[in-house]
């Protein structure tokens, strides 16, 4: 029998017992829908995480440390490469060299220090950190109230939310999430805060020794912003609680905790940095930049290293979501087997007639196969549509929840084309496999018996 004849006969058989076949098709659709919904949720979460990580600027950042000072984040790195004693200093010369590596946009030292700040004549002790001007476009500032620094070298400060709360004398009773950033920014923006700091002052005549003087200063800063996140938080959510422009901080020559290390080094009077951050032009270049910097004898770390673990986590998540979806699909395919076996009982006589007028085993088998395939195909289409709607509803519900909690909306769910194709293919294949047994049973039916059957 020709294929179109099989399909035509199958279609009319499906129409004949439309209720039962639609229910079976619905069963498949529900199975496919749950598969699609689960997988699209997995894909969506994965994409969301990747998007957030990317926009946070973490994907284009390489953290460089000296082998002399710090142990590596990565054991393998520690075992290979030059010994710590042969590793170069991470000083200004090294920073320039790193900046000249192709793909590096900017390299700046990570400067931080603990100091006292005075706000409305009350002292507050906290960590002050530099913020590179290039962080301006980072998504980490999504929730920034106020504005970013007006220029690279201006005496302005951006406060971390918890520090803002402290300045206002609000002790968060149940964690820092209690106050909204906007609430706290209002009374603080535009106000002055005085930062005390100690300058490391190298005397000109003492070039060859690592000695330096320490001079105390005060600097008045204008509060321009309050933020929730720290966009440079490669290693933790809050690097510091008050940020000033990186270039400004560099110019102040603030005494760093690791400067004590310098005075024990005695090779150069040039200050060395504990950490240099290299900003790379794109996530794709991170690997080659890392390699080049490693060749210079430094340790490097990027979020891509950590992201590999994250990707594995998502693969496992996908797998489990897929397994749950497949369970639903299995139940649906048992439905197909049941429907087709019932159809054989009901249509024994018809099968007998078809055989009597010349249908071969293959014809009968093809007919039942086509019916199973058609139910699978239709079920697949409905299922994808249904899964899409379910995903939409979940997404909508999540965003309603998020907006109640004061968060911006988020796309937590995605149906890529490959998923649609995959779901349709799976529905079709599962149906054919489910049709295998009923179809061969129908094909083997003895025509004499079948015709006798009333």
């Amino acid at each position: 029998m020709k294929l179109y004849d099989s399909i035509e006969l199958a279609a009319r058989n499906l129409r004949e017992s439309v209720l039962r076949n639609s229910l079976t098709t619905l069963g498949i659709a529900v199975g496919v829908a749950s598969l699609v919904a689960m997988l699209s949720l997995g894909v969506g979460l994965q994409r969301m995480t990747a998007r957030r990580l990317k926009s946070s600027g973490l994907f284009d950042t390489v953290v460089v440390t000296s082998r002399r000072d710090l142990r590596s984040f990565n054991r393998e790195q520690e075992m290979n490469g030059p010994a710590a004693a042969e590793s170069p200093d991470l000083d200004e010369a090294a920073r320039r060299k790193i900046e000249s590596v192709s793909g590096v946009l900017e390299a700046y030292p990570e400067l931080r220090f603990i100091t006292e700040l005075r706000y409305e004549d009350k002292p507050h002790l906290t960590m002050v950190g530099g913020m590179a001007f290039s962080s301006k476009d980072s998504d980490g500032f999504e929730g920034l109230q106020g504005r970013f620094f007006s220029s690279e070298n201006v005496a302005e400060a951006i406060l971390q939310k918890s520090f803002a709360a402290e300045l206002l004398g609000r002790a968060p009773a149940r964690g820092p999430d209690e106050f909204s950033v906007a609430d706290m920014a209002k009374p603080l923006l535009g106000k002055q805060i005085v930062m005390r700091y100690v300058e490391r002052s190298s005397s000109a005549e003492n070039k060859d020794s690592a000695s330096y003087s320490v001079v105390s200063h005060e600097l008045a800063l204008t509060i321009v912003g309050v933020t929730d996140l720290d966009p440079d938080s490669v290693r933790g959510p809050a690097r510091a609680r008050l940020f000033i422009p990186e270039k400004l901080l560099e110019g102040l020559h603030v005494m760093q905790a690791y400067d004590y290390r310098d005075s024990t080094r005695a090779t150069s009077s040039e200050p060395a940095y504990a950490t240099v951050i290299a900003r790379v032009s794109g996530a794709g270049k991170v690997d080659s930049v890392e390699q080049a910097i490693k060749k210079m004898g430094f340790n490097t770390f990027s979020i891509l290293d950590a992201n590999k673990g994250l990707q594995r986590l998502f693969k496992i998540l996908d797998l489990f979501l897929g397994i749950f979806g497949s369970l639903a699909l299995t139940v649906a395919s048992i439905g197909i087997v049941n429907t087709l076996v019932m159809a054989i009982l009901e249509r024994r006589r018809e099968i007998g007639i078809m055989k009597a007028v010349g249908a071969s085993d293959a014809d009968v088998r093809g007919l039942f196969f086509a019916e199973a395939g058609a139910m699978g195909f239709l079920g697949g289409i409905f299922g994808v549509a249904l899964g899409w709607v379910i995903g939409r509803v979940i997404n909508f519900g999540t965003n309603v929840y998020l907006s109640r909690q004061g968060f911006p909306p988020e796309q937590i769910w995605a149906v890529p084309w490959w998923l649609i194709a995959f779901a349709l293919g799976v529905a079709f294949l599962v149906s054919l496999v489910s049709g295998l047994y009923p179809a061969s049973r129908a094909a083997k039916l003895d025509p004499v018996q079948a015709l006798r059957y009333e």
Partner: protein
Amino acid sequence: MGSTIIRAVDGVSLDVASGEFVALLGASGSGKSSLLNLIAGLDSPTSGSVIVGGRNLAGFSRDQLAEYRRHTVGMVFQSFNLVPAMTVFENVELPLRFAEVERSKRGALVTTALERVGLSGRLRHRPVELSGGEQQRVALARALINQPGILLADEPTGNLDSRTGTEVMELMRNLNESLPMTVVLVTHERDLAEKYADRLISLADGKIAADHVNPSRNAIRATSRADT
């Protein structure tokens, strides 16, 4: 089935010539339907042979049997065995689908077959909307559609009143003479058989009890006889 082996047809030796109109007579359970099923290729003998056109059906595979049923024999039944969900047209067209006849040629073939059995119009009706006689005509048209050489009829008048039964028998006789077509008729109505068949074979308990030329119709038949 239980453990008892039933020999429905046992030790029957029978030759039917091409173009012959043969009636198999016997009480119910005499084995006449089983014999017909063997000739129809619906059943295979446990031993012995069924030779049609020089080919032994006993050695056929299931596919070969299907092919044989498709092209060599046409069947009509007591209960018509039309597919209730299909229209008249679709029922007659069904064997053409299995024979993979091109779609464009089917309409004409179906119409011709239906005209031959005296039915035209009502193509879109379903079998239940037709009278018994009309249903049997549709079944006959379906049996003819692939132009087989042999027509096998299993109690074709069993569900019909005597007038429509006669009409159907006349039709079969006509097909037998005009096409010409070999007809094997299974019936328990001796008077119908005597009226239309060339040869009467009586079966009892799976064996042939009598085999003789119908005395009322023995004169006319041609003698070109190849073994079937």
